């Protein structure tokens, strides 16, 4: 089991039957692989498709069906296509139940930064700001620290933010935090992590939930068997 798959499976626990879900690029993309087959979950891609199906075989590829990562996908039964303004009306109008995105930084106040790094060219934002501002529930999946070891879970974002106070849940390889009434709450801790170790790599101030538990996989570990 690699940690990215574990985070994706943890994110899947948050998705309810009938939910409309938009998946960002990176770890969020993996979520599609672990969706329970006994639930109706509908994947939305902002370039104009509700009902994204599995990746096509090489022979099945149709260059007219791609996802927001510009990768070929398929359409499920009951799927529909629409223009960009209609697609973003869905996102911005609050019709997407869950958006799962990566992040460069997340702050204790629920701010997220995931589109720009100071000092580098700021030439791309895509649909990130729309998704964070519009989705009913914003779940961030990200590695707890940057590749160079810099902390990413901070008191305040130092990179330009994507939106203010809108993260609902943060899933890293070490922990799960919930954001509620302006507070950041540690809910779950990975097997290999301790509270004191976590504190060291997490500048953000957070409350430890009285119900703090182990990383919840809820019996879905078997989903990993095929990987």
């Amino acid at each position, binding site marked *: 089991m690699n940690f990215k798959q574990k985070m994706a499976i943890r994110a899947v626990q948050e998705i309810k039957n009938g939910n409309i879900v938009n998946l960002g690029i990176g770890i969020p993309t993996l979520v599609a692989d672990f969706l329970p087959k006994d639930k109706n979950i509908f994947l939305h891609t902002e370039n104009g498709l509700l009902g994204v199906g599995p990746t096509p075989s090489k022979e099945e590829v149709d*260059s*007219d069906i791609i996802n927001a990562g510009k990768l070929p996908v398929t359409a499920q039964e009951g799927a529909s296509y629409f223009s960009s303004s209609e697609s973003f009306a869905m*996102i911005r109008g609050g019709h997407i139940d869950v958006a799962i995105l990566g992040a460069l930084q997340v702050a204790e106040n629920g701010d997220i930064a995931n589109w720009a790094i100071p000092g580098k060219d700021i030439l*791309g934002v895509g649909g990130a700001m*729309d998704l964070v*501002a519009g989705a009913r529930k914003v779940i961030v999946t990200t590695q707890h620290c940057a590749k160079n070891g810099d902390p990413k879970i901070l008191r305040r974002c130092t990179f330009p933010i994507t939106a203010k106070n809108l993260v609902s849940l943060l899933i890293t390889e070490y922990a799960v935090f919930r954001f509620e009434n302006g507070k950041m709450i540690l809910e779950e801790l990975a097997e290999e992590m301790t509270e004191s170790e976590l504190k060291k790599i997490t500048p953000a101030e957070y409350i430890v939930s009285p119900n703090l538990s182990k990383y919840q996989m809820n019996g879905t570990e078997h989903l990993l068997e095929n990987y």
Partner: protein
Amino acid sequence: MNKIISIKEAISHIKNGNTIAVGGFGLVGCPLRLVEVLGEHPVYGLTVISNNLGEPDGKGLGRILLQNKITKAIGSFFTSNIDAVRYVNEGKLEVELVPQGTLAERLRAGGAGIGGFYTKTSAGTLLAENKESRTINGEEYVLEFALYPDVALIKAKKADRYGNLSFSKTARNFNPDMAKAAKITIVEAEEIVEVGELTPEEIVVPHLFVNYIVKGEKSNEF
């Protein structure tokens, strides 16, 4: 009332200094034949409204950029074309970065007679700096204004001779919004069919939004 013309004639409607909207999400739904012929047309100082600026190695709009015809780009994601990044760094390209949903909505507004609108997207961020904001029902909204391209170059699956359009799957994307926003809309259609072949249910863009139609073909690039 014949709207079907040659690609060359269609492109000649683009003048120096025009603002042109070009459909597509990456290369999918981009009118690649029109863009190609635009490359042969001696026109400069263009402002391009498009989600991206083509792909590297001069694909799609990337080629027009390398011909130094574009002075400004309005869109949501230019980082996928390293040429665009380089042009910005060299001061040869001005960029107005817009969240993707705001880009689509500004085009939709231009087509629908909406002068401006309030959106929550980008509130409190760098992209809302120097923009008016307003609290509505306790939430912060940013004021954005409509876009009015002079010409739209769009891609359709089918066009009938009146200019009714249907689209293929996710190749629809920005095309309908741009068709409605522009003063002159030029469609590259994979197929041109007789009036009546497109059922009212299939028509996504009614003909009143379309000025000219050129014959294109299906692309396999993305």
